[in-house]
């Protein structure tokens, strides 16, 4: 451990140490700010929790690299009144009340929203409120969206309403005296410039300016009331975007960091330690002990590692730490045992061991105090290098769909993306960000590992 300093002398390992430090910092931040239960709950929650998020949104930073600014999500709620949300109620008779809601907002993005939804809540005893919903564009165009009575918990999927879509397309056809060559999406009609350009999907333009959503509610009971929440879903969200279930991918990626590091490092270290101990015992005692251990190693050579792992995790739906344990158990008698054994066979003949034996040191003492400490530093490079493999093993298991069903991990995000056909649909961010994290983790381990190899095995440094 005293030899950490030379590690900083190699430029490549400096990069590796840098990346690893960032990853560790992210892990600590994540563990401290988002408790695991919270992350798991959020990740497994239904669409209800994520209702205000856009579907398959790109990460917000793509706007930095593009001249067309993609919209963020805008949420307006009458339960949280502000300068943009005004609600006025007027009595219009003994039992009748009129409530007016006006939501004003500026829309200055270069692209259309992905969806527009209106969530309505109302309280009444017997007669539900009647709402008239209008949309006003910056140029003053009025669009009648709906006239309806609402239930206590109602939704109006404005952009997905087919009846509304047909209606709006007819209006455009009448206005421009031409039949649109395609079904113009509702979002385009609601926020687009209504001229010739709207007739071609490649020329449509956003009408920038102040929009208004007007809701006039007729309430038939003195205590009746309603609330409205308008969500104009954007096309970008957070630093990692969202998936097909509107979940914030960032949460899974953040939690994936400590999981990946812990999984990789603990698997690599415990496997190397166990293999080394087996090798040491095998080489020290020789004879039947050695014979038995060598045969067991050969048996494990035949046993298919991944299929057994897949079977066990399919059967028991185990969590990631049990998978880790199985990985360690299955690798304990791996091919590494043979290498360590060869190393110890050489060492056991060295003079200092003979000296220890001559003063009467016991087997255990020689093994633990003299043999193992001697080999420990030489195994560190390969341990660090193999940590990268185990990070990927976890990802691979997740991609095969047999990883931990609860813990959000990088591999799981990639699996979701694959399953949802992200590569076919061009949603590259969904695969690229977790992949970049996986790659940088593994490369940082590799860079450090190679540098350590040069430091601990000076013979390599010479050549």
């Amino acid at each position, binding site marked *: 451990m005293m030899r950490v300093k030379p590690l900083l002398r190699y430029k*490549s390992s400096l990069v590796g140490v840098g990346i690893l430090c960032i990853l560790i910092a992210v892990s600590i931040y994540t563990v401290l700010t988002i408790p695991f239960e919270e992350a798991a709950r959020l990740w497994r929650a239904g669409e209800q929790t994520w209702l205000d998020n856009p579907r398959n949104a790109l990460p917000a930073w793509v706007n930095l690299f593009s001249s067309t600014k993609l919209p963020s999500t805008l949420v307006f709620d009458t339960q949280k009144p502000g300068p943009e949300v005004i609600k006025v109620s007027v009595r219009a008779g003994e039992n009748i009340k009129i409530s007016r809601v006006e939501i004003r907002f500026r829309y200055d993005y270069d692209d259309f929203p992905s969806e527009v939804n209106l969530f309505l809540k109302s309280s009444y005893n017997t007669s539900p409120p009647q709402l008239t919903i209008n949309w006003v564009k910056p140029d003053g165009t009025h669009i009648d969206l709906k006239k309806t009575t609402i239930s206590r918990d109602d939704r109006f999927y404005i952009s997905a309403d087919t009846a509304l879509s047909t209606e709006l397309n007819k209006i455009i056809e009448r206005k421009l005296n031409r039949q649109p060559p395609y079904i113009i999406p509702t979002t385009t009609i609601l926020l687009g410039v209504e001229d010739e350009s709207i007739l071609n999907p490649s020329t449509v333009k956003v009408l920038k300016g102040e929009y208004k959503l007007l809701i006039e509610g007729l309430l038939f009971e003195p205590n009746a009331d309603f609330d409205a929440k308008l969500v104009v879903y954007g096309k970008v969200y957070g630093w990692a975007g969202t998936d097909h279930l509107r979940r914030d991918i960032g949460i899974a990626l953040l939690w994936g960091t400590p999981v990946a590091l812990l999984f990789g490092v603990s698997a690599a270290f415990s496997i190397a330690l166990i293999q080394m101990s087996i090798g040491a015992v095998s080489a020290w005692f020789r004879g039947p002990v050695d014979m038995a251990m060598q*045969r067991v190693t*050969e*048996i494990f*050579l*035949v*046993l*298919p590692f*991944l*299929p*057994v792992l*897949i*079977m*066990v995790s*399919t*059967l028991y739906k185990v969590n990631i730490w049990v998978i880790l344990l199985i990985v360690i158990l299955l690798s304990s008698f791996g091919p590494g045992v043979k290498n360590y054994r060869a190393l110890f066979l050489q060492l056991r003949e060295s003079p200092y061991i003979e000296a220890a034996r001559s003063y009467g040191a016991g087997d255990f003492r020689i093994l633990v105090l003299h043999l193992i400490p001697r080999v420990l530093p030489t195994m560190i490079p390969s341990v660090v*290098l193999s940590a*990268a*493999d185990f990070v*990927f093993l976890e*990802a*691979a298991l997740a*991609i*095969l769909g*047999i990883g931990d069903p609860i813990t959000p991990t990088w591999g799981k995000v*990639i699996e979701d993306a694959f399953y949802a056909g992200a*590569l*076919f649909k*061009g949603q*590259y961010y969904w*695969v*690229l960000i977790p*992949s970049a994290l*996986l*790659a940088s983790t*593994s*490369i940082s*381990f*590799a*860079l450090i*590992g*190679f540098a350590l190899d040069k430091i601990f095995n000076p*013979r*390599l440094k010479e*050549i």
Partner: protein
Amino acid sequence: MKSIRPIIFLGKRALVLALTVVVAVYVTIYVANMGGYVDEIVKGEALLRVSQEVRANPANRALNETQVRNLIEQLYQNELKRLGFDQPFIVRSFNYLRDALSLELGRSLFISSDSGSRSVRVIIMERLPNTVLLFTTTQLILFFLGLFTGLFLSRRYGSRIDKIMTLLTPMSSLPGWFYGLFLILIFASVLRVLPYGGMVDVPPPTDRFEYALSVLRHMILPILSWLTAYFFISTYTRRTFFLIFSSEDYVEVAKAKGLPEPLIRRRYILRPTLPPIITDLSLTLLASWTGAIITETVFNWPGVGSLFYVASVTFDTPVLVGLVVIYAYLLAITVFVLELVYAILDPRVRTGVMAG
């Protein structure tokens, strides 16, 4: 005396290897049955099948509920007897072992071959050529590319190209399937020049030549992904290996004697490094036919790897055991042949000095 020694040595090795195979196959049978748990799955399936058959049969309409139950129970017991499940698992596991070792691979539980057969042998033989075509080719390319580049670099040790290659070695810390994702993204998704996966176009071309061409096109990305992943590490390993061997004392002596460079390379560097290289090649080629589970899944390649995967998630024990027993036999035979060859070639082994 001298001539008997190696024979005794090899005989012992053969015995030990055979024993190892037997134990390894038994352990596999035990593990693949999850210590008898798979029985429960199979029994459950059998009960379900029998009761569905009985209840769906119009001839049994007249029977009342108890009679139906009795009939189901009776048929179920017959079915268990047919499957050989009337004996305890431990007894059966040894029957399985005997069958497996005599390569009576039997019938699969769930998987069927493309031709509809349930015979494990047919299922495996159907997948084997696909995997050999892809992964044995890949491994051969990787092996020779790594060998020659490594040798080349070890002679130009410290040159710029050597430094660049060493610098690129950490690229190999990412597995092949991972590069596969990106290659699919670039060449299939964005550029749309190569297929996403699979082995041949759908529908398969009828023309033989076009068929081969289509298969080749599907092989490009998987091979490329493995080359990207493993070329640098295999080159680096070979380079270091040759460097260590070329700094041996006897090489220095040969140099001091003024022997020509090509002769030194051939006789003093390549010849002593040949045995480990040959061992490496034969074991890699042997392992290549078990395919690569994840790469085959990513590229949707219908090989042994994906068979392994499907067999594991469906607990199709006979298929798993069949795959493992073939591998175990081939491995044991390869190891034995290698030892035999070395015993013939290496004078130290020949006299039994190394026997231990």
